[in-house]
């Protein structure tokens, strides 16, 4: 449904760039803002974009995917205005490729991990190491080698000591890597034998059909970083949208979706 | 010897007309004659059990294959037929021997020595050199012989032949026809033969059913049926006129020509023809196109045609602008038919009983050499 609306401007922008068009020329009027955002931000971002468009008249189109995918795409193509990454590491990748506007990077949000089960799951996990002993078949998470949520989860589990071995050692044989957090959550929804390590915000979207088994605390900090992309198609509008989602009003929206807003820019 | 009784009473709706046929036959070889599109092949496929939707009754010797009133429909594999389609339909994934053995399962279940039958078929049809060949490497005549052999080796109780010679050229037809006659004579099997070729049906059939637009329009002894005006005109445009086909015997061969005696009877007239490869005394069939026979009241002097055969007129029939004159050349020989124009006939004042001479060029006579040795 919004696939077409989100892909078309990107294709147009790519075409422009390929034809040698001046993609970085000053925007004439308010053109569309193209935002590449981590998949976990979908609901909150769409809500904010709707009110942005309502007040400014400038449409916003999104490409939601794993931050790793987005980073690869931004480094390979042109035409997107704003990148909101679920991890500092993938933002670093884009930055070191010289693909962001200097001075525009800032931390926007924090998130936390939960261990989630099917709504029928009856296991009790009162402390981290108990996770290794309950009888789930698989623990689904974003691919720890690539997807930030998975990377965070592994990092946290590796830091938990369970009597000489780490929690990761206790579960790694049962890990089912998924292409992104939502795919991992999909497996939890389908099979009561599967638990997942996902963002709290993702679990909240499916609160009725899942049960939080354990809330992770003291894990690695989970930071969402935002930056304007160099050579964007609508730099001015992009800047305005970036400011819009950093305002206190936007912070309240993110908070309602379960994110922890970081110091809002005055 | 009591011949088997084949009983066919069927109706079947087709595109342009309905097939509606009822006949019974006790003859060994029954021909189904008609132009293309007259329903002949459909009738054969119905007897074989390959046509759904046929209604009526089909029985061989009291074994009922189809009786729609009693809800009997024996599938094709239960009918014990040997089917030889017009285009051979040899199985391309089997060699000739494999094709001949394709029906061995049924032959074994029935009586009879399967291997002896195979040997006999291979000998009679001259298939020995072909056994390991692939069907795609065979000539048209060879394919038809293999298809015939395959049907014979399957232990059939009835042979169904669909235009067995139609896909062959004239020269091949002359060669394959004798094989069919040998099959008829050596494997005592009843046959139903579909053909639009008057030569074929005269050479092979004892009984002829003529179909037109799905209905029987004539029935009887082949030569008599084929010369009826309503039948004679059927094949117009499709068949090159009527051809007399009569048995004969080689008398002698000299100077590049052969002399044969028509009808096989001792008093039959002699006819000079092409050189035959057969020894004196051998039996063969000769074909004389009706429109290649010239009639003369006296033996004409200074004639280039080699033959002036005395004959007596039996009947004169009117067929369109032509006249068919049926003549008898000898007491024991079958009658011959000559086709002449109405004008020419009027000048001769011919009537039944008139004595006259048949003038026939040697080159107009076709020999169907049996190859079966002395009669």
């Amino acid at each position, binding site marked *: 449904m919004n696939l077409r609306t989100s892909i078309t401007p990107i294709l147009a922008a790519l075409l422009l760039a390929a034809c040698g068009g001046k993609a970085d020329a000053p925007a004439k009027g308010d053109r569309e803002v193209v935002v590449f955002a981590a998949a976990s931000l979908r609901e909150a971002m769409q809500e904010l974009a709707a009110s942005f468009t309502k007040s400014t008249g400038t449409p916003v189109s999104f490409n939601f995917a794993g931050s790793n995918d987005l980073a690869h795409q931004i480094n390979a193509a042109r035409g997107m205005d704003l990148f909101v990454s679920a991890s500092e590491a993938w933002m670093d990748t884009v930055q070191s490729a010289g693909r962001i506007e200097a001075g525009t990077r800032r931390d926007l949000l924090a998130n936390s991990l939960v261990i989630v089960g*099917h709504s029928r799951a009856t296991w009790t996990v009162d402390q981290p190491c108990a996770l290794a002993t309950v009888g789930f078949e698989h623990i*689904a998470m974003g691919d720890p080698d690539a997807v930030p949520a998975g990377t965070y989860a592994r990092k946290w589990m590796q830091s938990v000591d369970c009597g000489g071995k780490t929690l990761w050692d206790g579960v790694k044989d049962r*890990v089912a890597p998924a292409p992104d957090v939502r795919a991992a959550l*999909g497996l939890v929804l389908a099979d009561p034998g599967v638990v997942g390590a996902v963002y709290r915000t993702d679990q909240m979207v499916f609160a009725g059909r899942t049960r939080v088994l354990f809330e992770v605390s003291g894990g690695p900090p989970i930071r969402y970083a935002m930056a304007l992309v160099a050579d964007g198609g609508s730099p001015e509008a992009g800047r305005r949208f970036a400011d819009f989602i950093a305002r206190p009003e936007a912070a309240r929206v993110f908070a309602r979706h379960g994110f922890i807003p970081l110091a809002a820019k005055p | 010897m009591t011949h088997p009784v084949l009983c066919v009473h069927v109706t079947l709706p087709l595109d342009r007309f309905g097939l509606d046929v009822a006949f019974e036959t006790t003859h060994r070889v029954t021909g189904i004659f008609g132009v293309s599109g007259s329903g002949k092949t459909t009738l054969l496929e119905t007897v074989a*059990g390959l046509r759904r939707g046929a209604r009526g009754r089909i029985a061989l010797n009291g074994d009922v294959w189809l009786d729609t009133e009693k809800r009997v429909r024996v599938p094709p*594999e239960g009918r014990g037929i040997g089917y030889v389609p017009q285009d051979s339909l040899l199985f391309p994934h089997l060699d000739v021997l494999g094709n001949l053995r*394709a029906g061995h*399962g049924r032959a074994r279940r029935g009586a009879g020595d399967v291997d002896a039958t195979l040997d006999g078929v291979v000998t009679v049809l001259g298939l020995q050199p072909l056994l390991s060949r692939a069907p795609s490497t065979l000539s048209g005549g060879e394919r038809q012989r293999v298809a015939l052999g395959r049907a014979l080796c399957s232990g059939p109780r009835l042979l169904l032949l669909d235009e067995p010679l139609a896909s062959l050229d004239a020269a091949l037809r002359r060669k394959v026809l004798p094989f069919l006659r040998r099959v008829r004579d050596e494997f005592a099997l009843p046959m139903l033969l579909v053909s639009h070729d008057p030569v074929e049906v005269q050479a092979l059939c004892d009984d002829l059913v003529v179909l037109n637009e799905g209905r029987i329009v004539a029935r009887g002894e082949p030569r008599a049926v084929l010369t009826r005006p309503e039948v004679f005109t059927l094949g117009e445009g499709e068949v090159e006129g009527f051809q007399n086909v009569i048995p004969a015997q080689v008398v002698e061969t000299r100077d590049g020509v052969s002399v044969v005696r028509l009808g096989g009877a001792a008093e039959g007239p002699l006819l000079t023809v092409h050189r035959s490869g057969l020894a004196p005394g051998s039996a063969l069939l000769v074909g004389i196109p009706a429109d290649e026979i010239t009639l003369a009241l006296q033996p004409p002097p200074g004639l280039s045609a080699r033959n002036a055969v005395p004959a007596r007129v039996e009947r004169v029939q009117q067929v369109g602008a032509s006249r068919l004159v049926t003549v008898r050349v000898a007491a024991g020989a079958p009658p011959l038919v000559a086709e002449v124009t109405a004008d020419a006939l009027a000048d001769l004042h011919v009537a039944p009983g008139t004595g006259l001479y048949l003038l026939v060029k040697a080159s107009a006579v076709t020999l169907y050499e049996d190859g079966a040795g002395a009669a």
Partner: protein
Amino acid sequence: MLEVLRATFAWAAIATLLVMVPGTLVAYLLARKEFRGKTAVSTLFSLPLVLPPTAVGYLLLRLFAYDGPLGEGTLGLDLDVILSPRAVVIACAVMATPLVVRTARVSFEGVDPRYEEMARTLGHGRAATFFRFTLPLARRGLIAALILGFTRAVGEFGATIILAGNIPGRTQTLATAIFSAQQAGREGEANVLLIIALVAGFVAVYAAEHLSRTHAAAVRR
């Protein structure tokens, strides 16, 4: 890496064989029989060809989910499909079905039904006719169907990753291994797997092309 290749080929082979028997029968029915709803059946068996593989994967996931039609909550017994090697085989089989059915159907349609009638008149029943005449006459096309189905199964990704996941050493296939390697930026590993996929794909399609061409030539004769 070789273990992934071996497992992928084994699953693809099982999936293809599972599809071949019913797929061949369905293809034969579609090629020879007229029946009500034939177009619907034909379309149904072609559907995985036009649906996004992820849609098929999601459909299968719903099917085998706890509360799905084939789930433990409905059946009362756990088929234990999701995230298991069984899931790989099922996903591959479903995705290979259209190619197997369509290719087999074409090969049956290339066999003149009169050969079957001929076999019947020679005393062979329906089953014997099918096995001793129809199958051998259609064999090259059927081998092509087998190879194409196998190739599709080897290359299956979208449905597999949703139903079976991408668990190294358990449900990871060549396709999902390439995906993982690429996602994690392990380019060397991705390149090796890519070359393996290229070679295997080329050999399989080349063989299928070769067989169907000689089949067409044989039928034309």
